[in-house]
């Protein structure tokens, strides 16, 4: 139980850190830093033209969001699958050990 609460705090902290800015600056658009980066490059070096284009450009914000969400979904799927497997394995071993102890006593 103690352990669970620590993890809940960790998760809560991450949620607060990412949600607080959204609540503080409601309605304001959060610009991605790489696009601001480009603006900064153009300020420092106004004549610069990118010499290579992305191979595949996501068609608009919706498609890009979909692709990012897919990436996150795949990643968290794998992470949770493996953690779940580990958890099941550990619990099974604990149960086996408990059975062994009871058998020893008898």
């Amino acid at each position, binding site marked *: 139980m103690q*352990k669970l609460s620590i993890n809940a705090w960790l998760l809560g902290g991450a949620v607060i850190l990412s949600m607080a800015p959204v609540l503080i600056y409601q309605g304001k658009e959060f610009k991605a830093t790489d696009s601001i980066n480009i603006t900064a490059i153009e300020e420092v070096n106004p004549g610069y033209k990118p010499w290579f284009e992305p*191979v595949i450009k996501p068609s608009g914000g919706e498609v*890009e969001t979909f692709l990012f969400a897919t*990436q996150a979904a795949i990643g968290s799927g*794998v992470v949770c699958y493996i953690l779940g497997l580990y958890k099941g394995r550990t619990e099974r071993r604990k149960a086996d050990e408990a059975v062994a102890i009871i058998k020893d006593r008898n």
Partner: protein
Amino acid sequence: MTNKYWSKKFATLLAMIGLSSYLVIGSPTPAHAMHIAEGYLPVQWAIFWWVLAIPFFLLGLRSIDRITKAHPELKMLLALAGAFTFVLSALKIPSVNGSSSHPTGTGLGTILFGPLAMSVMGGLVLLFQAILLAHGGLTTLGANAFSMAIVGPMVAYVVYNAIAKTGYQKTAVFLASMLEDLCTYLVTAIQLALAFPAAQGGFMAAFIKFVGVFAVTQIPLAISEGLLTLLVWNWLQDYGQQELKILGLFQEKNNLDAETIN
């Protein structure tokens, strides 16, 4: 006993400083950095970073090969480390100053498998994003891999090992992944400043410009990354003891931070 008392005091103090600076710094100004966009590095620099990154990638492949040959049972954990980077770099998290950026998630894998293994993992994530998401780029892949998949993990490795020695393993995990995140973006700023020195003031002026507000964006994200890495670490301590023991990373419950943090 006194040791424990003081670390608690210190933790509270840190939390207060953190919270107040979070609120003070949180003024809405745009920020710089994250990965360098496609075509936005001059050709010679693009090649330079590619050449610098490739040896690390190859060493990383060898390192992964060795790990999986010596301990095939660790493949699952390796997949977990890779997937963790995959999730975290997909999360564009809004930050205090009204811009958004994403964590990198290479800290966990570095602590588990060492920095070289992560040069491959991080490189693959960047490749995926460059090709399919037009995020980062192929020409800038060398530079982005150098910051996220090479320097970041190196920093995490050094920080973790320096602190873990003292027995505070969880603190080490948190700080390693947090500083790894910050340094990744610091290197990006250096790379941009090198490629685009300001007309007046040269490298330093440009560096200050690029690093300027990005650091602010990245600080809360770095803390988030530290928290999430520690979360997964805690689960691994509970359920992945077998693997952590193979890697020599499992510390018994009576370690120092088990008292202060748990």
